[in-house]
């Protein structure tokens, strides 16, 4: 009986009829969904369907123009205090890593804890070093991002997000900019994160990862959620024509 629609208490993200326009272009056309604590959702869909835009509205990198988004009980609005609160709870990992090139890997990670969480430098460095250990690149702490590989950079970026001790992690195609041999090392880190119970929303084309890790797969098309199902149902018994086409196309190669 207690489906997630009816039990908002457990939901850490609740979206109600979210709309977004870029000028006249309707990108998100009424997204209504919610995510529970510890849930691992994969978001997929064709290019330009609004996947990035959707997860970017969740930490207000994009502003939505209609509907409501509530993150861990706090509604996203123009209120700057709420935005800052929510950004501390929501970590984000970008396709292009977006590490700060003028800071060492360690400083990339400690910046947020020191400036936002007001930790002392030594506390923050302790946490940063243990996170680098966790993503398996402790030996790269004092190098600059330009001196390490793409896969390592993305792992630093994950550590940077984790250093803020977020309750939710958003990933926007975290492996799309990587050479094939580096994809595994990043996915391994994400698998480990999933096992640790983190709430994760992952936009990705890695269907193997989706099938293995996700509790739920959401399929976006033209700014709307077309299919929302457990991986087994999604791959073996898709309901919507667009989903069937997408699955047959992605599984071909």
């Amino acid at each position, binding site marked *: 009986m207690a489906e997630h629609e009816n039990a908002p208490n457990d939901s850490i993200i609740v979206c109600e009829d979210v709309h977004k326009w870029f000028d006249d272009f309707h990108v998100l056309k009424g997204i209504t969904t919610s995510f529970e604590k510890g849930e691992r959702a994969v978001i997929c869909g064709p290019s330009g369907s609004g996947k990035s835009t959707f997860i970017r509205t969740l930490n207000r990198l994009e502003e939505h123009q209609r509907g409501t988004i509530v993150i861990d009980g706090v509604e996203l609005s123009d209120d700057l205090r709420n935005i800052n609160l929510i950004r501390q709870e929501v970590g984000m990992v970008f396709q292009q890593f977006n590490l700060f090139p003028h800071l060492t890997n360690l400083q990339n990670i400690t910046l947020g804890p020191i400036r*936002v969480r007001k930790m002392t430098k030594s506390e923050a460095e302790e946490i940063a070093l243990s996170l680098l250990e966790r993503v398996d690149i402790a030996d790269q702490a004092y190098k600059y991002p330009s001196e390490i590989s793409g896969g390592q950079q993305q792992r630093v970026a994950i550590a940077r997000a984790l250093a803020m001790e977020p309750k939710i992690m958003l990933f926007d195609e975290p492996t799309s900019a990587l050479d094939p041999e580096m994809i595994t090392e990043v996915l391994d880190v994400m698998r480990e994160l999933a096992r640790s119970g983190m709430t994760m929303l992952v936009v990705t084309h890695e269907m193997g990862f989706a099938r293995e890790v996700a509790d739920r797969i959401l399929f976006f098309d033209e700014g709307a959620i077309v299919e929302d199902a457990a991986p087994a149902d999604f791959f073996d018994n898709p309901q919507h024509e667009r989903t069937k086409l997408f699955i047959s196309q992605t599984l071909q190669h």
Partner: protein
Amino acid sequence: MRKAYYTVEERELTQAMKPPAHTKGPARWIKDNLFNTWYNVLLSCLALICIFFISKALLTWAFTEAKWGVIPANLQLFGVGAYPREQIWRVWSVIYILCVLVGLSAGMWGGLVFRFAVVLGGVWFIGALLPFELSTRGWFLGAVAITAAALFLGRGRTALRPWILGGWLLSFPLIMIVLRGFGENSVLTSNWGGLLLTLILAVVGIVVSFPLGVFLALCRQSNLPAIRWVSTAYIEMVRGVPLITILFMGNILIPIFMPGLDINQVLRMGLAITFFSAAYMAENVRGGLQGIPRGQHEAAQAIGLNYVQTMLFIVLPQALRSVIPAIVGQFIALFKDTSLVAIIGLIDLLGVARSVIANPDWFGLQAEVYLFAAIIYFVFSYSMSYGSQEIETALGVGEH
């Protein structure tokens, strides 16, 4: 095809390879670069002939005809203009304040600052060796001693760095007060002149126009239309008007707008130069800001940094670093442009040069005097340019 695996021997081979060393002698370099084709041979020969005749004429003049006596005879004038002789200790006090700060900074930061302090100490030392009056040589020697002592005291005390930065900030008003003095003994700013005036105008201009320019650039990028428009209008207006016009307007308009305040001419010119330079500075900085990818802003926001923190820790360090050459170019231009204040009657370095020439005692010595002034301008401008290159290397511009 890239190989995924190498045999042990292959790997040792690849590791043992070193890039071929570039050790060419100077003769080889000249041959390769200046005499490699028939037209380069022709051009090089022409250039050599020109250089030969020009330098021959110049050197002959400099060592046989030129009457350099005009320079030492007017050295104090070149240095401080009409600043009264019996108050000259004020200028030396200012130099000593700066020596203390430079010495302490050199001790605490080392590297480039240290080398700067050593060069500065060397300059004072040479001054002490030159045949000036005994008291002047004493002042020079004092400067050497103070720089060295401060350097020694500051050695390795990195914890005190913030205090020294504060000291530099405070030194600014302090220097003005020391130079001016109080009561009947005070030195009117209308008597400030020569290199002293040139440097004061340049330093005020640089130190104030830089943050102002950064601020204007940030405003020009603001999301709020009103702020953006005001800043854009200011920048475009200033850039559309020659500096001379702004100096004239500053001279006349500032007293009209602020009738209660007695703003002296030096300050007025300092303000005018600052406001002028800030507009150009803003455009330089804007170039740097636009080069920062949007992802940097987004990543900063995503970890919860607010606007000020994002700018301070992420955007500006990268943006400013990338435009150091342009910014220093602007500093150099400003330094040279201070010579325009002669137009409204201030006697800066160039003004002194002109008044020396106008003196019947030194009639007909334009070439000597102007050349001397040019050399002074060059030494300062080139030092800034050199410093900028050093800073770029130290920060690794274009690397990280």
